[in-house]
């Protein structure tokens, strides 16, 4: 989904350098392509826009077409811009039988977002995801790379409020 968020993030000389350095790892360790592209996506505010692909293509020698063929296959890449925090709520069966639906409703209400949407201020993207491997602590949610377990609707709402307040902003 392309939104008016595009203005929120643009390549600067500084971020370009970071992307170039990260992409450089490909020459010695080609098997790290996934990791490299995921790191670059982090630099690019959780998305993989065309401007970034151009730089990566130049640095790795991989064509833009083959880069997009790769990233479009894997769920963790997003060609369109996402929020600073990607909130991913597990919807697989073990979380489902422990009340993930009610937790998702609480999160959705607190963030005022439906699954798949990004907030207008570019801070949050809400997504459903599959099992996070935390089923012994269901229901579980991931916010970027942090995990939160044993959630109730109340705890999930509080967590989102903490994020909204900026408690987790570096």
């Amino acid at each position, binding site marked *: 989904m392309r939104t008016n968020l595009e203005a929120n993030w643009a390549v600067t000389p500084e971020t370009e350098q970071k992307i170039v350095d990260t992409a450089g790892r490909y020459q010695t360790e080609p098997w790290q392509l996934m990791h490299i592209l995921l790191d670059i996506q982090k630099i690019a505010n959780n998305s993989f826009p065309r401007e970034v692909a151009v730089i990566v293509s130049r640095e790795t020698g991989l064509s833009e077409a083959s880069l997009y063929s790769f990233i479009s296959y894997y*769920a963790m*890449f997003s060609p369109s811009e996402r929020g600073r925090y990607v909130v991913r709520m597990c919807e697989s069966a073990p979380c489902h039988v422990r009340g993930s639906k009610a937790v998702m409703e609480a999160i959705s209400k607190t963030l005022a977002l439906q699954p798949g949407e990004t907030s207008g201020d570019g801070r949050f993207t809400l997504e459903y995801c599959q*099992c996070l491997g935390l*089923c*012994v602590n*269901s229901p579980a949610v991931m916010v970027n790379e942090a*995990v939160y377990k044993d959630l109730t609707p109340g705890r999930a709402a509080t967590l989102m409020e903490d994020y909204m307040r900026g408690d987790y902003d570096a």
Partner: protein
Amino acid sequence: MLEETRIVLRNVDEIDPVSIEDYRARGGYEALKKALSMTRDEALSEIDKSALRGRGGAGFPIGKKLSVTKAVDADQKYIICNADEGEPGTNKDRVVLSGDPNSVFEGMAIAAYIAGAAKGFVYLRFEYPYIFPILEQALENARKAGCLGGNIFGSGFDFDISVVSGGGAYVCGEETALIASIEGKRGEPQFKPPYPGVKGLFGKPTVVNNVETLANLPQIIQNGGEWFANIGVPNCTGTKVFTLCGNVARPGVAEYPMGTNLKDIFEAHGGVKDGKDLQGFMLGGQSGNLINPDQMDLPMDIDTCRARDAILGTGTIMVMDDYCEILDIVENIMSFFIHESCGKCTPCREGNIRMHEIIHNINAGDGKLEDLDTLEELAEVMQITSLCALGQNSSYPVITSLHNFRDDYLKAIERGQRA
């Protein structure tokens, strides 16, 4: 009360996972040392005697895989540890890797020595980013101590490991898809043969094994294959690391001998949460089976499960209380497979969508009795004609729920017809 038998989990929660000193204080890397003092054939024969079968779902003997790759002549071979753990309801590999990574590295090194590989990869699923630094630090410490890297223990054997990341695709747990993914390609399953053991990563012979399988190897070498073969049941030796989840009183990851009765495991974990009634279990992950309480007297090993129309799979035991709606759960599971099918072959790509649609309609009160036959027919086609085990197995939860919870389907259809 049933006690755990910890082989794979023996160090978990007992040591600092990144500390090489802690690991070695509990006998760590002694097995690798021992293996390096044996010939490759001698080491392989201990693995063969153990009769260890793969723990990633398919149950293939690792000794056979190692001997295939050992026999191939190649300038480079690889060992891959499959840590993609995407099967919903499975947490065991996370617990092993984050709690005792060296047991997996040591197992990989032993496998590498036997097969003749010098390089290994751990393919870590995207959803476990917090395990990355643990693995990197543990690797660094093991190298510094001379347990990994060049000329290990002065034996002349070189072996090192890199950690690579998954991209959030369940199907990349399938070994040929996983290999494609490391090669920088779309992770689609490939036709076999050639098998990875002969022609795998970058075209080289490659042994792919699950985390839990590999973590067993040090103990097998250390205590002997016969010791291992005496644990569990004759055709299915050793232990299994189970994940207890869902509406169970005490969820967790726990290790019991193969063949331990489901009833005993369930009771050891406190039965149903909040004293509710038991409605059934999902066994072996979402590509597993749904069984009802009458089927609970079940020895949990690969062959007995298979013979009783159940699946051991990854060792998932998801408990469902009587508040669960079976059709909701099956619908949820089928939407997972729609999402995760790579779309390469038609029976899987279309079949999962059709099954989901039919179940959704029945659940919404728009079902007909004939739909149940259609589900059976669809399942048969998918099982026979799909390229990989995703499409071959994704109908299991539908078919088993249809057999073991038939009343739920009939009631939903009846409800619809009355309305």
